[in-house]
């Protein structure tokens, strides 16, 4: 995996190296989610550029941008965003359908991904039958299924209590370390960022205020 360079120019210019764990901090309305959406290819910059690897997202067609989201990016959200009418297995399998992965391989891949987040036993349940932490784990499994280079998390623990929040963050860190995924996480909880991120970027009113390295606690500071 080559170096992943991300630069968002909106009064904001930043670079993220491949394999880095970056936290975007700021109060609501600071523009941190907008930066994340730009990186995710959900939004296009009106001016400037977003470069991921060797792609300039601003220059991709809608179709190419969808492919980029499908194969390069995995996303988790504050509100989990699982599809309520589908079981966990089906939710996790959904990106494989868009990627046109062979039907015969899909169930096994979905089981593997759910195994990784410890939800294999609950794969036939619907999201509404699960706790928030379990739903977010399923969302993580879905984000992983196409083996993306980039994991984008938008307030992943915002709807969870601190215990399950820690559980999720441990998993994110595990993916960062073991799978070498670059993680960009948006959060307004400074403590969470200090515990897990290698770098903290502060935004306010759409402007970059501070960008400093951070030494995360060795085991997520569970002590």
């Amino acid at each position, binding site marked *: 995996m080559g170096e992943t360079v991300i630069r968002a120019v909106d009064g904001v210019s930043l670079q993220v190296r491949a394999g880095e764990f970056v936290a975007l901090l700021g109060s609501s309305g600071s523009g941190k989610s907008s930066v994340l*959406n730009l990186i*995710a290819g*959900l*939004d296009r910059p009106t001016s400037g550029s977003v470069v991921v690897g060797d792609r300039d997202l601003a220059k991709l067609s*809608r*179709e190419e941008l*969808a*492919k980029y*989201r*499908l*194969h390069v*990016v995995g*996303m988790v*959200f504050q*509100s989990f*965003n*699982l*599809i309520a*009418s*589908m079981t966990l297995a089906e939710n996790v399998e*959904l*990106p494989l*359908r*868009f*990627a*046109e992965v062979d*039907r015969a391989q899909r169930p096994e891949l979905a089981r593997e991904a759910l195994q990784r987040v410890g939800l294999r036993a609950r794969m036939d349940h619907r999201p509404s039958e699960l706790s928030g932490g379990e739903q977010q784990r399923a969302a993580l499994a*879905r*984000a992983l299924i*196409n083996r993306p280079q980039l994991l984008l998390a938008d307030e992943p623990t915002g709807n969870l209590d601190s215990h399950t929040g820690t559980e999720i963050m441990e998993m994110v860190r595990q993916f960062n370390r073991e799978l070498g995924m670059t993680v960009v996480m948006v959060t307004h909880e400074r403590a969470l960022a200090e515990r897990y991120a290698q770098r903290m970027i502060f935004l306010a009113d759409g402007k970059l205020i501070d960008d400093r390295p951070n030494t995360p606690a060795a085991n997520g500071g569970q002590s």
Partner: protein
Amino acid sequence: MKLPDLTELALRNLRESLLRNSLTTIGISVGVASLVAMLSLGIGLQQLASRRLVKSGLFDTVVVTSHRDMRTMGRERDEDRNGANPGESRILDESARAEIEHLSNVVEAYPDIRFSTELRYEDKPHLTMVSALPQSAKSNDAFEGMPGRFFSSDTAPEVILQKTFAEELLGKTPPRGGEEPNVTDLAKPLLGKELTLRYAQRAASPNQPVPPGADAANSSDSNLAGAAYSVVSREQKVTIVGIADLDPESMRGPTRARVFLPLKLAESLHVMQLTDLREIARAASDQPVYSSISVRVKNPAQIQLVEDAIKKMGFGTFSILDATRSLRQFFAVLDLFLGIFGSLALAVASIGIVNTLVMAILERRREIGIMKAIGASDGDVKKLFFAEAGAMGILGGIVGVALGWSIGQVINLGTNVYLKRQSLPPEHFWAVPWWLVAAAIGFAFVVSLVSGLYPAGRAARLDPVQALRYE
């Protein structure tokens, strides 16, 4: 996304809001049902009309005439200008008839024998036109189910009378504007009675076959050379076997007579026909010369082939094929109108599809946003909505065809109960051919896809950031 996935997701989504989608699908079904009902009525009526015509012998018959006859009908100058060799035109005699009969796709070729004659019934003379019928005319509508029976054989000395002639024999004249007499009542006093047929025989040589039961008293003085023929007056006793309830004016040439004889019997009588006078110059032959020959073709579809083959032989032909063009045109217009009326309900149903899918976009806004966020392209979302519209179309089409078919069956049944009460034979005027089933389902599918055009486009353009913002 591939088709199996699209179908699976579409059906899953349709199940999610089962009531609304079922109602929309029922709407399509009603539209398709009305379309199928209308068109199958049109097709059924057309088939009924064609069946009638085929049975009446109109569609499978080619009338062959000699070219010379055509020329006497004012074509002479044209033919001359075209440099056609007059020697090419052939005489329509027995050998020509046999040759035509041996053409492929020809069932039979029989001469049209028609002559004016006097028939005596209870010693009163009645002058009328007599025409010969082949045994194959038995299946003709006019003779099927008439009082009495058809000729027992092709040579039997038997006759079938047309209704008005039967009335004349009985001395009844129908009151003007009054009710027509029942054929069955007319038949009772006449069936089995004998008539004496008086005719002029064209006797070419003494060793001509004497018709069975013919009065041979005068035949001895017809001993003439083959180069000439004499006209001899003869009598033939015939038995009335049937009374046909057909309108002589509505039928084709050969049946435009009021008394019918078996064909072989009529041939053996060697009745002096009008054409014989024209053939006087050729009278050297003792073979009869026919004014025209009716050729029955195996299948109405092969009429053109047979006509062409006969034309090559040097004869003129005429078939009803040209005349039926206007009939086909009429049914095409009728089907078009029925189709338009039937489609109206489908058009309304398609608005239902648009409505349902637009509602679905509003409801599934978030879901669409999620799918796009995790990598669904605009095309995937569009195809998914198309698949949902298409699935509703196909389901509605299938249910609609079944519904339309049932409606047709019920109406057919009801009408036949009515026909039975009126003591009329049952009719099958409702037809749902396989192509109509396929076309109706296909049409429903296409209509629903067109209806899905706008919702699918709108869903595809949905901005995922906007869709995911509100919780």
